[in-house]
């Protein structure tokens, strides 16, 4: 095997590994731009991995992905409602969503008969496609690569983006200018959560082909870190998601090399993605500015 073969192998895995993180993080950027901070991403990914698997089993992969998106929308609506109209504390809701999801998914898997595990039949998984870029790639990879550009365009070049920024930065002024703050925030949070839902469904309906009680494995929190990394710039989300996916894949890949064990203990290698992310943030990115009204409900005076 040449170095290049290894590189393409790692690239192949990392392109898949980045999908759930990047999707969830792109969605979260939309929400946070509008001023809503949802730390329940982990829960959304986990729950929609379950509903996605059940949906795919019932009606094929399209239904599965839609079920994941639907789950994201439902949780996003709940989160959005509580944090806008009901003036609730966003952090608390997010923590609650995570706990609820962890409990409910494991509980539901027990009820399904095979506790902790549920497989999606091969025929109900998203079919891979062959492209000039590579064989057997998931079509969702291309969506994931394109979406941040779309989000970037949306945020920086359109009226909608302006509105989102306004309600996130200075909701009172936005209100005076005639923007309906709460509904704008609610929609942004719901749209954002739907992407996290798609990311969750991707894991079970496409990537791994099954759902387990811990399938999200901290990816929601990594997505959160990616958002902070990006400073709410969707293009940097793409970069952050890729860096993380790449180094995670690299770590798992090279830990299988027979020679590597003589050089470094296996426990050290999986630390790489986290250390690299820290270095990049500390070295190149540093202080990022968040919307002034992030995390606070808007109360009209």
């Amino acid at each position, binding site marked *: 095997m040449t170095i290049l073969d290894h590189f393409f192998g790692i690239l192949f895995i990392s392109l898949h590994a980045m999908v759930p993180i990047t999707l969830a993080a792109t969605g979260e950027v939309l929400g946070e731009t509008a001023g809503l901070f949802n730390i329940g991403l982990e*829960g959304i990914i986990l729950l929609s991995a379950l509903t996605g698997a059940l949906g795919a089993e019932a009606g094929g992969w399209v239904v599965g992905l839609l079920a994941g998106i639907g789950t994201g929308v439902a949780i996003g609506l*709940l989160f959005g409602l*509580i*944090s806008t109209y*009901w*003036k*609730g*504390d*966003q*952090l*608390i*809701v997010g*923590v*609650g*969503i*995570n*706990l*609820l*999801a*962890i*409990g*409910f998914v*494991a*509980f539901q898997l*027990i*009820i399904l008969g095979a*506790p902790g595990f549920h497989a999606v039949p091969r025929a109900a998984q998203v079919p891979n496609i062959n492209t000039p870029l590579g064989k057997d790639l998931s079509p969702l990879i291309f969506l994931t690569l394109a979406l941040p550009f779309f989000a970037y365009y949306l945020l920086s070049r359109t009226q909608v983006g302006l509105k989102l920024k306004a309600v996130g930065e200075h909701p009172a002024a936005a209100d005076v200018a005639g923007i309906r703050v709460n509904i704008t925030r609610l929609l942004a949070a719901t749209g954002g959560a739907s992407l996290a839902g798609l990311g969750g469904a991707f894991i079970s309906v496409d990537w791994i082909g099954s759902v387990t*009680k811990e399938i999200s494995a*901290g990816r929601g*929190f*990594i997505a*959160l*870190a990616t958002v*902070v*990394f990006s400073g709410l710039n969707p293009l940097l989300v793409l970069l952050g998601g890729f860096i993380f996916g790449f180094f995670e894949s690299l770590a798992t890949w090279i830990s299988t090399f027979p020679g590597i064990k003589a050089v470094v*203990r296996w*426990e*050290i290698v*999986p*630390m790489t993605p*986290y*250390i690299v*992310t*820290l270095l990049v*943030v*500390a070295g190149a*990115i*540093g*202080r*990022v500015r968040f919307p002034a009204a992030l995390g606070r409900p808007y109360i009209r005076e």
Partner: protein
Amino acid sequence: MKGLAFIARLRRLKAWLFARLIGPAARAIARLRPLWESLLAGLIGLAVGAIIMLIYHFNPIQAYFALFRGSFGTVYSLSEALANATPLILTGLTFAIGLRGGLFNIGAEGQVYIGALAAIALSLFKLPAGLHLIVTLLAGMLAGALWSLPAAILKIARGVHEVISTIMFNWIAHFLSFYLIANILVDPRRAEKTISILPTARFPVLMPRTSLSYGILVSIFFVGLVLFLLWYTTIGFEVRAMGFNPAACRYAGIKRWRTALFAFVMGGFTAGLAGAVDVMGRPPSYAIFSGLGGLVNLGFNGLGVAMIGRNHPVGIVLAAIFFGGLMAGGRLMQISPGVPLELIRVVEGAIIITLAVPELIRIFRLFRGKLLIWRRA
């Protein structure tokens, strides 16, 4: 005239009553509002759990009876609830200190691991009984604080957001723990765990035949300490002011790096202690198993505890006991009506989501409003 004087006297009595008794009582009730809110949210969470049980054909009355019996129903179960609460109080404090200072410090998870490992490492040495315990506690505490320092420095020097740095350090701590457990601190006879804390450094069991140890006193002591530091010292005031209104603090000349450093290091102390107290007082093994099954989620559960406890040390104690009770009661709930343990997490989640909604608390405002109307009349 006499009648008028009587009425005047009555009025004075009424005024006195309000000033001395009913007024303070009403104010006390108002002050305790967070408590009522948490209680209401608890009830709603349990109701959500009951509805889910009904949907899946479990009997919620049986289940909640078992939950209660297994959490606060007997001295044994209460001890188990308190044993679970012991580390959660401390990790709850970690989050609360951070949030009070305007930091979203979710590094408790990793600091717990490091604190526990430091405590274990101290059992590589032999020391006299009392001293060993104190030195081990200090080691856990310092290790937790040391692990929180890089995040603090990155925040202060480079402006790296604490969410990103603490998540990364949690994972690094995770794999570092794997390394230390399997190699440096490994029990030579049983490689699936670390060496056990030596008897000289263990917290004695407080209630025989339960998991409750004297470690809970450490937790309670730190609740008092944090309460004192945050509310009765200058630096504590500055930390809270920074969390409340950072812009005003800048004008007042409060230095951001000082408050951030204080919040991180205090948080590290409490989280490190949580890990140390847990391994020093958790029978029967007094050790960490590979896979970290005893420590995983102590940090993240502390986040929930801090939320339910409204980021107040006293509230955190109550919330931690409540959480610990749910965990202890859940063990029994799965035996007798056979409700899977996972449902407990669903209930916890529903409670926390409910807590976030101030709207639901209107009922209590209504109650308070009536009281005020009566007073005016």
